[in-house]
C-alpha cells in the first residue's frame, strides 16, 4: 500500500484541508504546490536552547519567550501499544499509540501510531509523520490528527 502512505503524507485537496487540526499548532502541512510531508511543530527557548512539545506558553525552565519550532518528521519508537478496547474520540478499533524519540532533537513525544499498522510496530523501528482525518474532536466533529507510520511499510517489506 505505498500509494496510501503518499496519500497520507500529502493530503488531497478538498475535505481534508477544510478539517481543523485536533489542536492548533502541533503540526504543519505543506502549502499548495510545495513538496514534502507534514512536520511536527513545537516550541523552542533560545536562552535555554531547549525544544518542547507541545509548545509551552512560556519556557518552563526560565519563563522566557518561546518561538514556534519545526521538530522534524521522523524518529524511532521508544514504546508502543495497541488499544483493543472500545476506542475514545471516534478512533479506529483497534488503534495504536506510543512514545517516539524524535531524530532532530531527541525529544520523546507521545503520539498516535498508524492504525493501519497496529500489529507491525516494534521498539526501535524508524517512523515518519503523517496527517489525516482520524476520529473526532470530542464534540463529534471530524478533525485532522498527526500520527507516525512505519518508514518501511509492512506491505512494502512483504513484497
Amino acid at each position, binding site marked *: 500500500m505505498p500509494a496510501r502512505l503518499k496519500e497520507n503524507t500529502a493530503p488531497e485537496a478538498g475535505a481534508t484541508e477544510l478539517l481543523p487540526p485536533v489542536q492548533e499548532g502541533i503540526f504543519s502541512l505543506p502549502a499548495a504546490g510545495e513538496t514534502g510531508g507534514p512536520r511536527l511543530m513545537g516550541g523552542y527557548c533560545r536562552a535555554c536552547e531547549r525544544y518542547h512539545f507541545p509548545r509551552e506558553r512560556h519556557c518552563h525552565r526560565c519563563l522566557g519567550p518561546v518561538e514556534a519550532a519545526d521538530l522534524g518528521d521522523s524518529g524511532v519508537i521508544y514504546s508502543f501499544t495497541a*488499544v483493543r478496547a472500545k476506542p475514545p474520540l471516534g478512533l479506529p478499533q483497534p488503534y495504536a499509540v506510543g512514545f517516539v524519540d524524535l531524530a532532530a532533537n531527541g525529544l520523546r513525544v507521545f503520539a498516535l501510531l498508524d492504525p493501519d499498522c497496529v500489529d507491525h510496530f516494534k521498539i526501535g523501528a524508524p517512523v515518519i509523520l503523517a496527517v489525516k482525518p482520524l476520529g473526532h474532536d470530542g464534540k463529534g466533529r471530524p478533525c485532522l490528527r498527526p500520527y507516525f507510520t512505519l518508514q518501511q511499510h509492512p506491505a512494502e517489506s512483504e513484497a
Partner: protein
Amino acid sequence: MTDVYVIGAGIIPFARHEASSLTDLSVEAAYQAIKDSGIVPHRIDSGYFASVLGGRLFGDSTLGQSVFAEVGISGGPIVNIENACASGSSAVCLAYNALSAGQSDYAIVVGAEKMCVPGLGLLNSGESDIETKLGLVTPASFALRAQRHMYEFGTTLEQMAQVSVKNRRHAAANPIAFFRQPVTLEEVLNAPMITDPLTRPQCCPMADGAAALVLASGSAISNNKRAIKINAAVLTSGSYQNPIDLVRWETDQRSCRLAYEKAGMGPDDLDLVECHDAFTIAEIIHYEALGLCEVGEGGRLVAEGATSLGGRIPVNVSGGLIGRGHPVAATGVAQIVEVVAQLRGEAKERQVDGAKVGLAHCMGADRQGDARSCTVAILSS
C-alpha cells in the same frame, strides 16, 4: 512537629451500589470510622473529602461539607480534594500536615467514588490534555511501560499475570473486595486484550466505594492501644523530564525515597505494602521504586512468591486495586485502612503475622509519561 496517629478506620464494600448516592456511601464510611475511633464527632475539628468524579457525573460540589454535617462535624475547616487516583491519599497527607503542625487535634478523611454508571468508558487525564486528544487512555499509559519493561528486562507475560493471580487470591479473603473469586494464570492470559499486553484481569475494575479515617495528634490520643502511628506521609508531583524513562520511574523512586527518609526507615523495615496496582505492570514497577528488589527484577519477585501473603514482603494482601476494585478517590484511603487493620492485628484470614510496619503507596493520572500525583505513607504499631 507533633506525632500523628490513626485512631479510627471505616470502609464499605467496594461493589456496584446502584441504589446508593455518593453521599450515602461517604456517610456510612465516615460513621464507621468515628465509631471505631471512640470519640464524639464534635471533637473532630477539621475534615478532608476526596472525590474525583462526583462533580462531573452528578454535578456535586463541596460535598465534603454535606457528608461531614451528616455525621456531626461542622464549624472547622473542611476541604474538598481532587488529585486523580491519589485523591484520597492526598487528603490523608493534608490532614497529617495540619495535625503534625499543631493546627488541629482530630481530623476526618473520607475518600469516596460512585463510578459504576453507564457509558463512563476508559478513564483519561482530562479532555483538554494534548495526550488525551492524541488517544491516550489510562490502560495504554501502563501498557507502554509494560512493553518497555519486557523489552529491557525480559519480563514475561506470565510474570505480569502472576500479579493478578496473587491479588485476586488475596481479595478472596477480603470481605469488602469487589472480586471474591480467584483466577488462574491461564484465565488471566487468555482473557480479552484491553491494550497490548494487558488483558482484562490485569486492569483494575471500576467500583463504587468509600473509606474513612480519623486522625489524632499525639497530644490527643492518651493511651489508645489501637492507635497506629503515621511515621511519614508524603505527597509529590511529576517532574515531567524529557526524555522520560517509563521503567525507571523517577517520580515513583523519588517519592518512595522521600518517605523512607522522613520515617527514618528503609524497605527492610517493612512487613507489608499496599501499592497502586492499577495494572499488573504498575505493581512490578512499584516493587522496584520501593526498593523491594532491584530495577528490572520485579517480574521475578512476584513469580517467586515473595510478595504473596506468607512471602518475604507481602504486597496488596487486601487484593489491591485489581482485586478490591478501584473507586478512584476511595482507593488511597482504603489502602491505609488495610495497613491499619494489619498493624492492629485485626485482618483475620489475611493477617500478615506479626506486622509492625506497613507502607501505602498511591499514584494519580498521566502527564508526559509521568504521574501527576504520588503519595507514600509509612505507618507503625
